[in-house]
């Protein structure tokens, strides 16, 4: 694993993923064993876009390792409003902390920021680009529920702008998976991502694109649902028409395998009906909770081998 930064899931090998997931499983089994492991270490939270789950789970993870966080706060209250560049901001905060978490609206922001700092930098989302820590908790959840090899997964919704989708697709191509992508035509995977997946997979695993869930639902071990956002459509009626075709409820799932695992990065709006929450299929709240042990594992690996608590 590149122990300095976590920027994109494209850089994560199968061995890297397994290292993080194994560590996360150890931590989940006995969190008290690491309760003081990084006492005194500080994590800098630089969120240039709103976040609930990602930010709070990083904060929880760091505190459960015995460390603490410093938070830039909202963009409005920071020196960004005075015109400071991201390059300057990260160089300043680097001096206060042992690692940085960055979410930024511009694609490539984490790549650029990592060129200016020496402490580990974790990308918590860059525009429509990548969200690799979400991917690791997704992979952890998939491994717990369905296993990562000989896996048939359907990824549905906004595949064009959904950064969790791009990150997940790259990482899954390290494993023996069949990936089905289900979306309206206007929200298909970007051609860049398709190009990369074909390059990466070298024919070893397959990707297929569909417009209707029914075409593949019965074959799936995992269905990963994402939100289709209103602002991607020119008008409300077009949005309602399209979004309505990509919602699931108990009736939809009658055609699914009994072992199907339904995931969602959250927040959801109405793409998964609340009535699904109580079924055996639903794994999305478990998925959100897994963000803590997985981020604890990542921070532990980065801070331990990055030199802060070198043993």
């Amino acid at each position, binding site marked *: 694993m590149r122990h300095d930064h976590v920027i994109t899931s494209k850089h994560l090998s199968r061995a890297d993923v397994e290292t993080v997931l194994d560590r996360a499983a150890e931590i989940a089994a006995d969190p008290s064993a690491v309760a003081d492991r990084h006492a005194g270490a500080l994590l800098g939270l630089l969120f240039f876009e709103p976040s609930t789950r990602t930010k709070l789970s990083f904060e929880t993870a760091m505190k459960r390792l015995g460390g603490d966080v410093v938070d830039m706060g909202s963009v409005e209250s920071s020196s960004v409003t005075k*015109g400071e*560049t*991201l*390059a300057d901001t990260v160089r300043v905060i680097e001096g206060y902390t042992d690692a940085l978490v960055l979410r*930024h*609206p*511009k*694609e*490539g*922001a984490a*790549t*650029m920021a990592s*060129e200016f700092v020496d402490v580990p930098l974790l990308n918590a989302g*860059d*525009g*429509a*680009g990548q969200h690799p820590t979400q991917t690791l908790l997704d992979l952890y959840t998939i491994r717990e529920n369905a296993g990562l090899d000989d896996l048939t997964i359907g990824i549905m919704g906004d595949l064009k702008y959904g950064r969790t989708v791009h990150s997940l697709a790259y990482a899954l191509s390290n494993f023996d998976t069949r990936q089905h992508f289900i979306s309206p035509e206007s929200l298909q995977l970007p*051609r*860049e991502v398709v*190009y*990369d997946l074909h390059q990466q997979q070298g024919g070893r695993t397959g990707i297929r694109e569909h417009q209707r869930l029914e075409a593949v639902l019965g074959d799936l071990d995992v269905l990963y649902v994402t939100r289709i956002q209103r602002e991607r459509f020119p008008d409300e009626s077009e949005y309602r028409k399209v979004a309505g075709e990509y919602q699931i409820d108990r009736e939809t799932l009658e055609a699914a395998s009994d072992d199907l695992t339904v995931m969602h990065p959250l927040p959801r709006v109405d793409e998964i009906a609340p009535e699904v929450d109580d079924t055996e299929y639903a794994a999305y709240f478990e998925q959100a909770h897994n963000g803590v042990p997985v981020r604890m594992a990542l921070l532990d690996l980065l801070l331990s081998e990055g030199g802060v608590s070198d043993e």
Partner: protein
Amino acid sequence: MSNSGDDRSEHELRVSKIHNGTVIDHINGGQALNVLAILGIDGSQGEEISVGMNVPSDRLARKDIVKVEGRELSQDEVDVLSLIAPDATINIVREYDVVEKHRVERPEVVVGVLSCPNDGCISTGDEPVDSRFEVVDDGVRCSYCGTIVREGIASLIEH
């Protein structure tokens, strides 16, 4: 000029032979000004430059030629031209003779030459970084946001 086997361009080149410098020949027709833009040559430094555009050519139906007096361009400087003028030939001239002749080769990366067409890319803002593109099979790819450009590369040249 040494023999190129192309009588007409031989003639054209003879018209304005240079003393010392670089002749970039076999540029795709219409791309001469983009070549100068990529090289950062705009005449403001007093450089002596001759430009021939849409000159008849055997190898390319129409070609452009650029001659820069008093400056020998290095292979690194000219390789980036391969993105818009893949057939270009580089002639280094000393005392009116061609002393070196080479082709442009596709570089692995192109830094500070093209601007990313993705408005959402961090490299297009006010950050203190040069644009950077990796050269891939059939185009270039932004090292920051991953956008691939296959056509219209010349329109991305930073001026």
